């Protein structure tokens, strides 16, 4: 985890906030920190203390399904990577006896003299991200939890499916440790349930239950799994696809029912439920999983009291649609599930968004308190010498040495050509081992290092830092993965595994001999951002960047700013949309750093992160050139134009937005109206658009309530497939039901029909509850038409930014990089990313602004050293590489009379596609030259170690 390595993040664990005083920019925060009793810097995470401790305790990380000891670490990859002592259980802490752990700890890390600390921190802004809490135990007990052992929570089930969990990924019933055959998931446990005070929808459980069920089926294909839903709420981007896959591929059964209780019959669990048509059904299961909702954090009230912020009626942080990340107190921001139940992509997005707002507040003191790490100059003379290789064969505690004879591998390494030093650290990644490696590099003048341990994906950066700290180029290291790819997979064959480890080490050494230092260039960044799209997302992003101190060019294709927001009448929480719009426009216009270009579109763009040049067409004839360092895509989406339900054929058929526009003008049109029928999923979740448009359910409920308010005697029907009023919007749905709005569920194989008659229109729908067709004479039919993407293909090609199958832009990674595109320096927010509410668009826009501000704030972007390089003498200028590069990172340039390929190092990702396709083999990859790879392959053969250099 990067946070553990950043010199500018100080992690305070076992810590809680006791007080905040002062004002934005100058808060004083009092933090109480309880002792760990184990010194983080000295602990090598060897696990001896846990082994010798006589005090067993329930392992809370594994949901109490396993046992650990008072001194322990939650999980192997935990940050800080140090053990700690559970003070409540420890005999030494409570009774001054025992002390066994301290005696066994060879690192001397155990320190019972540690005292609690009260720290006073000077901070400029505070971001509250305490997450969510657990549903009350009484709610779970209603479903037999605690009484019947095979009723488990979704958290427990998660640990049972996890390879590093208490059962190593084997799904077993807690009662008899035998694999279950039939599992039922019950949804909405502690959600959508007023009796326990949680009237809201937790937004994530439908999807995680589907995920857990799919993972379980992956483990045990014969499992029979049923999920009991009220509505299937998979409204996130790509979620409906995943749900469909789970149903089709794994045959997971979907029941629409709320099971009231669980009973035990002869050691198995009986469920009885009522189907939609009123019939009762019973079935016996071996295991029941309770899909626990997300509650407000246990300490929500304490946090609110200390920080002086307001909570909403569900004890989550109170925010507004226009500023979803601001608490009621200036300078204190909120992100994640404390703002409302949400999934990981949205939490990560909000986190970046909150960081942007903090950055706006503190722009004046940027880089004042940060620490930069400096490294000694590289020892070029040493690097140029004959290879002097050091090989370190890691025990990884018992992870490797439990199977492989590490000493034998180490001694074998000594026999390889060029090796001048060999060692076998217990944990090569521990702080003290890294120090020792650094010392040994210096003492022995090593110029190549081989680490035989784990995966370079997680640990190579750590070892590279070590090399840099002693003046070696970070490219001069090679890792042999003798853990994941050897000891873990060959645990049953220790002798063969040892031989394979020797092979891997020999191959790594052969490659290491041919490693060359790689340059680490940086390129300057033009401190200007180009924001495409002047709707809510674009304006929010532009304002944030400008307030963070950067110049912004905001390009809007229409004559005025506003986008879809200008068509909205009310926001989902009933706020006046026009006022929100007015505030946003005013904020943009008064900011001198923002240059607004309306009636303008992007014509072409060239360059790479830090150095883009764009041509903007303004009006019909004019064009303008803009130089900028980053791009934010906020080009929006549009209302889907219905092709069915007599839309366009009758003036009585409207879309939701058109209804809002009418309502805004007055209630005259409702004078003779009696029945209003709303139809959901028009366009969405169907043949025209596969995706769920996320908002329409809440929008329909909102407008239905408005209609009721305007004309209370109206009869309103909402014909739906799943009501997806997620999060706190569930309140609106409940209110609508209370107000007598009639909800009728339909299925896609039996869609409602809108029939034109001589006078007026009629809607026909099959009501599953009474098992009969309804014929509703409708004064108005309102179609909840979904959100369609813009014509994004052209822009997608200009930017080389891929689209999803639905036509929205595809982010680089749904969870880790939700607002970045795969092309460096291009960021994404708003409806261009996918359907979402105004408040979600605003949060996402702030997140894009945070990410875009990073290169702008740094002033230079570092280029990854593993990039392609073209040997221009051999290049024939065929252009194959340029055509194939997915990142726009290689281009043809004229040199004299001929064209030659050239890598744009700032954009190159080092994927190697160009190198593999080059017909003259003139492209090589830094760190992976053909010679080095061939040497590695040759070294695989038993004689290879003699030649070694690939000859």
């Amino acid at each position, binding site marked *: 985890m990067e946070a553990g390595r950043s010199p500018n993040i100080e992690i305070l664990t076992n810590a809680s906030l006791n007080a905040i005083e002062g004002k934005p920019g100058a808060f004083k925060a009092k933090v109480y920190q309880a002792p760990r009793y184990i010194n983080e810097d000295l602990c090598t995470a060897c696990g001896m203390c846990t082994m010798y401790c006589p005090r067993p305790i329930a392992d809370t990380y594994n949901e109490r399904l396993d046992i650990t000891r008072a001194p322990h670490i939650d999980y192997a990859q935990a940050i800080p990577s140090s053990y700690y002592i559970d003070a409540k259980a420890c005999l030494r802490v409570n009774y001054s006896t025992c002390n066994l752990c301290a005696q066994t700890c060879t690192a001397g890390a155990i320190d019972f003299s540690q005292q609690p600390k009260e720290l006073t921190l000077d901070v400029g802004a505070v971001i509250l991200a305490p997450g*969510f809490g657990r549903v009350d135990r009484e709610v779970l007990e209603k479903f037999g939890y605690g009484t019947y052992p095979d009723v488990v929570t979704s958290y427990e089930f998660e640990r049972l499916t996890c390879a590093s969990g208490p059962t190593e990924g084997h799904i077993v019933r807690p009662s008899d440790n035998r694999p279950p055959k039939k599992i039922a998931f019950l949804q909405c446990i502690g959600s959508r349930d007023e009796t326990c005070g949680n009237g809201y929808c937790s937004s994530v459980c439908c999807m995680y239950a589907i995920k857990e069920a799919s993972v379980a089926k992956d483990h045990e294909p014969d499992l029979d799994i049923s999920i009991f839903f009220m509505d299937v709420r998979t409204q996130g981007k790509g979620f409906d696809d995943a749900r469909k896959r789970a149903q089709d591929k794994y045959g997971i059964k979907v029941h629409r029912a709320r099971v009231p209780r669980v009973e035990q019959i002869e050691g198995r669990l009986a469920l009885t439920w009522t189907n939609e048509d009123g019939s009762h059904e019973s079935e016996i299961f071996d295991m029941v999983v309770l899909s626990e909702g997300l509650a407000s954090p246990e300490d929500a009230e304490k946090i609110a009291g200390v920080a002086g912020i307001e909570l909403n009626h569900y004890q989550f942080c109170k925010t507004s649609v226009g500023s979803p990340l601001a608490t009621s107190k200036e300078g204190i921001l909120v992100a994640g599930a404390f703002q409302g139940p949400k999934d990981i992509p949205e939490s990560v997005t909000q986190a970046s968004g909150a960081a942007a707002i903090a*950055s706006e507040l503190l722009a004046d003191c940027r880089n004042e308190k940060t620490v930069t790490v400096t490294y000694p100059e590289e020892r070029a003379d040493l690097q140029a010498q004959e290879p002097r290789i050091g090989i370190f064969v890691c025990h990884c505690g018992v992870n490797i040495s439990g199977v492989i004879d590490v000493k034998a591998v180490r001694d074998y390494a000594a026999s390889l050509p060029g090796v001048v030093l060999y060692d076998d650290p217990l944990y090569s990644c521990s702080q003290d081992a890294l120090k020792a490696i650094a010392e040994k590099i210096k003492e022995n003048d090593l110029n190549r290092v081989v680490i035989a341990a784990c995966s370079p994906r997680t640990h190579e950066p750590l070892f590279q830092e070590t090399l840099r700290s002693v003046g070696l180029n970070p490219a001069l290291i090679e890792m042999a993965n003798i853990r994941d790819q050897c000891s873990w997979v060959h645990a049953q064959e220790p002798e063969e595994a040892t031989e394979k480890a020797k092979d891997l080490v020999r191959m790594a050494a052969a490659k290491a001999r041919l490693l060359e230092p790689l340059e680490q260039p940086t390129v300057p960044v033009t401190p200007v951002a180009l924001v495409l799209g002047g709707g809510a997302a674009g304006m929010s992003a532009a304002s944030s960047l400008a307030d963070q101190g950067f110049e912004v060019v905001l390009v809007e294709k229409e004559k005025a700013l506003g986008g879809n927001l200008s068509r909205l009448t009310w926001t989902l929480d009933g706020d006046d949309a026009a006022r929100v719009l007015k505030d946003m426009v005013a904020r943009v216009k008064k900011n001198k750093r923002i240059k607004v270009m309306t009636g303008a579109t992007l014509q072409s763009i060239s360059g790479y992160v830090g150095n883009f040049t764009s041509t903007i067409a303004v009006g019909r004839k004019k064009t303008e050139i803009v130089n900028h360092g980053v791009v934010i895509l906020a080009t929006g989406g549009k209302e889907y134009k219905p092709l069915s339900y007599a839309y366009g054929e009758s003036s009585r058929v409207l879309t939701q937005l058109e209804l809002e526009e009418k309502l805004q003008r007055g209630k005259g049109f409702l004078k003779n109206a009696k029945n209003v029928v709303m139809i959901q999923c028009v366009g969405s979740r169907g043949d025209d658009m596969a995706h769920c448009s996320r908002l329409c359910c809440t929008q329909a409920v909102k407008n239905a309530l408005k209609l009721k308010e305007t004309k209370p005697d109206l009869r309103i029907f909402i014909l739906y497939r799943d009501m997806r009023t997620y999060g706190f919007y569930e309140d609106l749905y409940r209110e609508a039901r209370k107000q007598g709005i009639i909800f009728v569920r339909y299925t896609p194989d039996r869609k409602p029909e809108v029939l034109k008659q001589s006078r007026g229109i009629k809607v026909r729908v099959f009501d599953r509850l009474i098992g009969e067709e309804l014929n509703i004479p409708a004064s108005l039919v309102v179609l909840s038409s979904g959100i369609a993407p813009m014509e994004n293909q052209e822009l997608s090609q200009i930017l080389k930014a891929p689209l999803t199958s639905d036509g929205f832009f595809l982010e680089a990674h749904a969870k880790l990089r939700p607002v970045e595109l795969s092309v460096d320096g291009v960021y994404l927010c708003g409806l261009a990313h996918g359907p979402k509410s105004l408040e979600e668009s605003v949060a996402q826009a702030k997140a894009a602004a945070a990410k875009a501000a990073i290169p702008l704030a740094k002033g230079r972007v570092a280029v990854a050293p593993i990039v392609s390089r073209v040997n221009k003498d051999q290049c024939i200028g065929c252009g194959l590489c340029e055509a194939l590069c997915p990142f726009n990172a290689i281009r043809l340039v004229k040199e004299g009379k001929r064209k030659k390929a050239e890598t744009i190092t700032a954009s190159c990702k080092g994927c190697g596609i160009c190198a593999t396709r080059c017909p003259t083999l003139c492209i090589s990859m830094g760190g992976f030259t053909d010679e080095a790879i061939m040497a590695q392959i040759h070294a695989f053969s038993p004689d290879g170690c003699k030649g070694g250099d690939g000859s």
Partner: protein
Amino acid sequence: MVLGGGVTGVQAALDLAELGYYVYLVEKKASIGGVMAQLDKTFPTNDCSI
């Protein structure tokens, strides 16, 4: 200061550090990672959580 070391808090801290600010990340438990560290896979792509 970021209160909470789950996926949200960690992301906020990383972004702030990258933006040029010194960050205190305050976590009540003994390690950061929050609930996400307990998850096996994450939806919709079933990526590994850790």
